[in-house]
């Protein structure tokens, strides 16, 4: 049997054999499937859409709040370095490189292009050149600011 004979045999077979027609039962079942799927979709869609929209809004709100909160916290935590102070008081850690102390006025110049970090506002009643008063009066401990080691 060569290729042409085989092709003819196959073509003749598919012409000869009649495939069954779709029954009325099959058509009804398919129509019922569509109705069922359509009903399920219609009943679910508006509620589901509202739920997903609410969920999305809540997620976006939470994300914005977290990001904003983190920024505020980071700004609060930024203070002038105390490495130089700790070095003076004998608390220099092995990994701490003592920083060159910038003049006070340079620290006060917030927002300038110097690399001095931002500092907290001065306490009320403070005058330039006068050291801070101790806000926690009591016996000073070794290593505490202003106390000899």
């Amino acid at each position: 049997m060569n290729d042409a004979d085989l092709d003819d045999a196959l073509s003749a077979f598919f012409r000869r054999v009649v495939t069954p027609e779709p029954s009325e039962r099959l058509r009804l079942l398919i129509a019922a499937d569509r109705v069922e799927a359509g009903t399920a979709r219609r009943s679910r869609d508006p509620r589901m859409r509202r739920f997903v929209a609410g969920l999305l809004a809540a997620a976006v709100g939470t994300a914005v709040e977290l990001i904003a909160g983190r920024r505020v916290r980071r700004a609060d935590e930024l203070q002038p370095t105390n490495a130089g102070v700790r070095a003076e008081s004998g608390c220099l850690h092995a990994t701490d490189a003592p920083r060159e102390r910038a003049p006070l006025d340079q620290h006060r110049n917030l927002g300038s292009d110097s690399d001095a970090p931002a500092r907290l506002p001065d306490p009320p009643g403070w005058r330039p050149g006068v050291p801070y008063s101790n806000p926690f009066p009591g016996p000073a401990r070794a290593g505490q600011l202003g106390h000899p080691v």
Partner: protein
Amino acid sequence: MLEGAQWMATGEDTFGTGIGTALTQDDAFSRRVDAYLARALGLACYLLGDPSEAEDATQEAMARAWRARGSLRHPDAFEAWIDRIVVNTCWERLRRTRRLAELNLASTDPPSVPDSFAAVLARDSVGRALIGLTPEQRTVVVLRFWRDLSLDQIAERLDWPLGTVKSRLHYALRALRAQLERDDREVDR
């Protein structure tokens, strides 16, 4: 070319809300699927060799097509798209049946309705040889010789490379020829 489900819209949105358009699209899709139903059932019959199983597979495939109708992007691809769903559904059923047969759980009850199609397949030497092929080989032969599709069209429907289609058709025809020649020798004896 129109994108999405717009191609199926044949009427206007009389409600001005999008609901009318959606209903029209669904209606157009239903009509197109209904017109295609006989060909889908025929394909399932050849792939499964059992009309009652083919009816179940066609119902399942049409339900899948209905659920996935939003994924049909181009009107020209409708037949390839739905053929692929029918073929995949049939292959899944064949795999399931094979697993059940391996576990000896498959029903051995004779069919309650006389099955003329299966009888024709069993009587005809080409039909018997066709049923003896692997599902993939049978699919290629049916699409090539029953549907008269080109190799490119078959590759598109089955999502196979062209080389795979060619090689599967080659091995399928070789197996068919060998089976038919065996049958001829037995008749001659």
